[in-house]
């Protein structure tokens, strides 16, 4: 069993209440930070921990915190990104539902470190039932004196609020999130200035993912150096993985970074193998935005090394032969899955979610969806494949925010690794009429097709 620092107590009944959470050692990090440390010392521990942003980008959290501008007399804000909308990802939902107090505690400790006196948890509107859970946890923390004026007699004041969104994937992008929090459309902002200089209400702001904030609790409790001993190399600590798709045991697993992908998929401790004992075909390891990998490149790197669940190992080989850990939205395709249909599905998603600000993304995602739809439905032409690659390459890097890249990468990767499957759809349109065309006969390469 790997070490758990976030889901350690999630099986304990009543852990969602203050009383039980406190009895299990909850809010110690607040006491330790406020009573025995300066805000800068807390930031230093987070730096030492090597913690990297758990929302997908993997940027070092301590460094992000140290960029926060601190002009005198200007408010600073901490905003928690609980907009979790990346297809394949449901870890934050799980954490907030099971153990809302770890997020509240992390918000208090992190706000103290950053010198924020008002903090917000921006949560996707569809998670309204979690708003109720978080609001209750926050009320309990106020009642216990961990929020409000003069926390633990230190003179430090903090108010914490939950703010619901209303259904927009783009609001998971930090500047779109801030626009939305200001009561506007979720259109991402040009950077610079970065939120650390001019964020919410043009004040210095840090935006961190739910899991990142929660990880501050064990980091302060254990000390940054001790936390950094968990994991492997520059992938320190544990990571929540949302496991879904065609596996026997879908769910949220806290893993010590560095276990092998093969173990994660096949061991009974985690996914338990492929559903119905079918064959593993492919996997998206880090949420829909990261490149899909075929089985061979998923379990081993191009150099033949065992692929590990870590930032470095999953991205080994770059996009040519690797992928990314991303948000940890890990979903598995068995032999019956059609990669073209999946890619079309993703393109429809990004087209739907593009905010429309930048032409390459607004128009390009629509074109990719259209082209993929016609290939999947047997109306494609051979040159459509290169056309897709061309459109994807013209979106990537040409937009204000990374949604454009996120829309382009899955398409480019699917063609890179499964080109024959695209060609099959074009060459044998009558064979793909049934939407479940690979359910009876899995696709095993063009040379195995007898028309």
């Amino acid at each position, binding site marked *: 069993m790997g070490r758990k620092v976030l889901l350690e107590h999630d099986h304990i009944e009543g852990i969602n209440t203050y009383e039980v959470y406190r009895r299990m050692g909850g809010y110690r990090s607040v006491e330790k930070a406020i009573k025995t440390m300066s805000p800068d010392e807390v930031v230093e521990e987070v730096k030492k921990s090597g913690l990297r942003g758990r929302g997908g980008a993997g940027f070092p959290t301590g460094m992000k915190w140290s960029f926060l501008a601190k002009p005198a007399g200007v408010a600073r804000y901490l905003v928690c990104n609980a907009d979790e*909308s*990346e*297809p*394949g*990802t*449901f870890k934050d*939902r799980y954490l907030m539902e099971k153990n809302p107090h770890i997020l509240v505690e992390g918000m208090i400790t992190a706000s103290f470190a950053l010198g924020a006196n*008002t903090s917000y948890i921006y949560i*996707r*509107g*569809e*998670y*309204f*039932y979690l*708003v*109720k859970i978080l*609001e*209750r946890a*926050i*009320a309990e923390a*106020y009642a216990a004196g961990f929020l409000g004026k003069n926390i633990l007699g230190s003179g430090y004041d903090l108010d914490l*609020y939950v*703010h*619901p*969104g*209303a*259904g*927009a*994937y783009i609001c998971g992008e930090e500047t779109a999130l801030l626009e*939305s*929090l*200001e*009561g*506007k*459309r*979720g259109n991402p902002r040009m950077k610079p200035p970065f939120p650390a200089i001019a964020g919410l*209400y043009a004040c210095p702001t840090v935006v961190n993912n739910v899991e990142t904030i929660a990880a501050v609790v064990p980091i302060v409790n254990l000390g940054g150096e001790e936390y950094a001993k968990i994991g492997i190399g520059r992938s320190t600590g544990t990571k929540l993985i*949302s*496991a*879904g*798709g*065609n596996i026997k045991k*879908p*769910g*949220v697993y806290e893993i010590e970074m560095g276990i092998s992908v093969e173990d994660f998929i096949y061991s009974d401790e985690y996914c338990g193998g492929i559903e119905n004992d079918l064959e593993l075909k492919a996997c*998206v390891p880090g949420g*829909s935005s990261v490149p899909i990998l075929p089985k061979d490149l998923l379990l081993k790197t191009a150099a033949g090394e065992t692929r590990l669940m870590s930032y470095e190992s999953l991205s080994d080989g770059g996009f040519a032969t690797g992928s990314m850990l991303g948000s940890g*939205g890990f*979903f598995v*395709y068995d032999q019956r*899955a059609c990669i073209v*249909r*999946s890619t079309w*599905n*993703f393109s429809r*998603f990004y087209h*739907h*979610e593009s*905010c429309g600000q930048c032409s390459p993304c607004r128009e390009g995602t629509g074109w990719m969806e259209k082209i993929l739809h016609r290939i999947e439905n047997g109306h494609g032409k051979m040159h459509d494949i290169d056309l897709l690659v061309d459109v994807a390459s013209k979106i990537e890097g040409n937009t204000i925010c990374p949604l454009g890249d996120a829309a382009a990468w899955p398409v480019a990767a699917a063609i890179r690794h499964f080109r024959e499957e695209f060609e099959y759809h074009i060459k044998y349109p009558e064979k793909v009429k049934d*939407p479940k065309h690979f359910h009876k006969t899995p696709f095993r390469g063009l040379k195995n097709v007898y028309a």
Partner: protein
Amino acid sequence: MAKFSEDTYDLALRLIKRYPEGKQKSALIPILHLAQAEFGGWLSAEVMDYVASILNIKPIEVYEVASFYSMFNLKPVGKCLIEVCRTAPCWLKGSEDIIQYIEKKLSIKDGETTKDGMFTLKTVECLGSCGTAPMMQCGHKYYENLTTDSVDEIISSLKEQNQAQVYVSNDFFREN
């Protein structure tokens, strides 16, 4: 003229206080949710104008936000808005069959409302339920690991309740 109940109006004022003075527009999305729940599951121009008046902002500032976010309905919907996830992780687990089944069962297509005004079907993008796929949302409730049998049960129970299913009730927010 649309007008909140006393309770909801008080809550709206409390929500406005969560943001710094002069930044009351931040409360727009939460208050639009309250409005949608109170005024029949959708936002008419009249309701949006009313919300603008509470926040002391221009109506256009409300319209442009309401039209951006997928949870706000700008046209009437049935008492129960059934939102079925169609994104890849749910697709891998059979969401296409579930969507077809509901379309057939209720004799409506994606985006349509049953004649009795009870159900509206809408396919939506990932709702963060990929480990319990396929899934649908109705009001604030998630219905997961769907099968055609469980869809039958859910729909009969919603029919029996004969109540508007909303994303939020006033008691979701703490009193502060």
